[in-house]
């Protein structure tokens, strides 16, 4: 669900104005209503909660009784709490490392799967399986497999696997990144597969005539041609990793200690376990701002022509 956020929705304005010829201009009013369902959904489930959260961040509320405004007290207490920089650090650590693991692997897998051979199509189906499982189920399964006393390692007497995987800070973060990658590499491979198939074969033919080998072709044709696909896929990863919650919640519950407590989890714990909706809303607002900033930054990287270059995503 976290990966489903499209980074750039083509704006309706463009769709309407690119309708052919001046004859259509007069009828653009009749097309504009088509945006209404989306607009209503966006307003009800997007704008209203966003405003609600913003208002709540200036109040004191335990989720049960009456709501009392308390000015900037929540903001002061959250911003001075050492938990916040720690959670932001963990969030970015997981975001950057999982991006660094997923991107090269998805790119290679996607290029490999773009071939038309039958066995590759068969492998593509197998690779896709992790994406079909729910995050909670994946987390429960890995938790059982990695159990230091009853898991895979002690069961098969494999010393290397018998580690306190989820009980040591660095190992736990590593495990989270591994599982996230395992789960989402298939998805991003699929995006890259589509991207690679859009590259005209004539370019490869010309390169072969010029004497370029496969590796050279990959770096000189495939990767540059996939620039926008890479940006699309990266946006999905970055924005998605801001909201990682279910997997970590089930796997480690933010532990050991607070080693894997990402922002989303910190927000949940403050709001629904400590009954402090005000400070939790502050973190929600921070999450929104961070997400906005990151999405804008990635769009900048992609230049303004992104929309017309969207292929395979």
């Amino acid at each position, binding site marked *: 669900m976290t990966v489903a*956020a499209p980074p750039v929705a083509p704006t309706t304005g463009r769709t309407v104005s690119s309708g052919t010829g001046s004859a259509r201009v007069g009828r653009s009013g009749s097309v504009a209503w088509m945006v209404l369902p989306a607009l209503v959904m966006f307003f009800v489930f997007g704008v209203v909660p966003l405003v609600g959260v913003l208002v709540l961040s200036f109040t004191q509320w335990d989720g049960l009784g009456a709501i009392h405004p308390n000015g900037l007290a929540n903001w002061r207490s959250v911003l001075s709490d050492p938990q916040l920089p720690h959670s932001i650090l963990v969030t970015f650590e997981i975001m950057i490392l999982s991006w660094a693991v997923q991107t090269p692997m998805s790119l290679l897998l996607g290029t490999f799967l773009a071939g038309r051979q039958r066995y590759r199509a068969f492998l593509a189906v197998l690779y896709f399986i992790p994406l079909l499982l729910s995050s909670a*189920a994946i987390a429960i399964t890995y938790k059982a497999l990695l*159990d*230091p006393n009853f898991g895979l390692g002690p069961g098969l007497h494999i010393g290397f696997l018998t580690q306190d995987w989820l009980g040591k*800070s660095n190992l736990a973060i590593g495990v989270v990144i591994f599982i996230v990658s395992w789960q989402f590499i298939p998805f991003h491979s699929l995006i890259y597969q589509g991207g690679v198939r859009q590259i005209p074969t004539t370019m490869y033919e010309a390169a072969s005539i010029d004497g370029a080998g496969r590796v050279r072709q990959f770096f000189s044709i495939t990767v540059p041609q996939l620039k926008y696909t890479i940006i699309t896929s990266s946006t999905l990863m970055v924005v998605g990793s801001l*909201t990682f*919650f279910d997997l970590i919640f089930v796997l480690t519950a933010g532990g050991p200690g*607070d080693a894997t407590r990402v922002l989303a989890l910190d927000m949940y714990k403050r709001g*629904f376990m400590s*009954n402090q909706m005000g400070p939790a809303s502050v973190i929600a607002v921070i999450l929104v701002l961070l997400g906005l900033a990151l999405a804008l930054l990635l769009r900048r990287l992609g230049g303004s022509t992104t929309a017309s270059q969207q292929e395979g995503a």
Partner: protein
Amino acid sequence: MDPMATSRRNFLGLVGGGALAAGLAACGSSGPSSTPGSTAGAAAGSGTTYWFLTGQPQQAIREAQVKRFNDANSGSKIKTTEFQNDAFKAKIKTAIGAGQGPTLIWGWGGGGLKAYVEAGQVEDLTDWFNGQTDLKNSIFPSAFTAATVNGKLYAVPGETVTPIVLFYDKRAFEKIGAEPPQSWGDIMDLVPKFNDKGIAPFSLGGQSRWTNMMWLEFLFDRIGGSEVFQSIYDGKANGWSDPSALKALDEMQKLIKANGFIKGFSSITADSNADQALLYTGKAAMMLHGAWTYGNMKSSGKDFVTGGHLGYMNFPPVDGGKGDPTDTVGNPGQYMSISSKAAQADKDNAKKFISGYTLDDATVDAWVKSGNIPVVKSAKDKLASISDKNDSEWLNFVYDTAANAKNFAQSWDQALSPTQAETLLDNIAKLFQLSISPQKFADNMNAVIGQ
């Protein structure tokens, strides 16, 4: 701009937490399940509803109570929904806050109940309950403390009294040729002996955090007496940096540093009963846990209980400590409140259920048969009729521990307000991870006293 990305993220952020909590419950092996209830009874208002926890044997006993009630009152049946422990805790708060809570609110009393009372969400039951003389006189007096807020009764005690007990595996002690510990010093001496034999001294489901808390509850009591936590509970400033408290925290970290707990304890959860499995499979020698675990160890542990390998005792004294060695901690009972938002007909229905079906003879029998002591004095009389030798010994032990305790303290996370409880659990996890010092723990906790 990116309206979709923003909206979705925000939407997920806001709604995701609650939705996930509910979703997670559905993923467990014992997710919510509802009984089809009668909607015909026009006098029954919007319908009497009751949410409670899954997990045997408690679940079956609760289901049987409702069944008896519904069979006798076909016009005003109670509709039930069942939840896993952690999912319940998250869901009930949110639901009550949103005015969607059940008529009968099941809980642990203490700080959680106080929060409901302050928000005006639960009914004052003082006058009604004073009229229920028989029921009132049958319940252990110690069970009422956690149900009383500002001198008024907001919940009726029910179900079982469950002290925290030190369980041990007699086979493990035979292997190292030692006797069960009589003091904290003995515990520290036993740790290297068990580790040398490849047996973990203590099992612990550390990811659940309240499991670690039980250790501190006993150490605080044995070292400084029951006053130490009482003053924290009363909101006295700097209660956590009492010298006895700091000593207890320090002793705790000494045991952790000496490898007193099973490898990987901080990723083991108590909800999955993996901590109990470590004890009955012989991987760990001892375990500090609630009396409610006996039933599961008996049913899942093969011959561990039936073969007489399970030993148990009250937590031993700490040398030079001020606490009374008969003191115990745990749950003095479970509690049922009635939602103040419910229709009058539903409230009356709920009262009828509480007074007639929660501690009736059939229920008391069922609790005793399942290896639990219900919160009524008549439980003692039932014990004589238990034919199973192991069960009989166990039940007498639990009854005596509860009845002879000079002070039966409520679990900290139930006694304190939700805000303090969450901060406490959080810092306990860090303390056990050795990532904060006792002094830092005390400072962090002092900062939220009274919140």
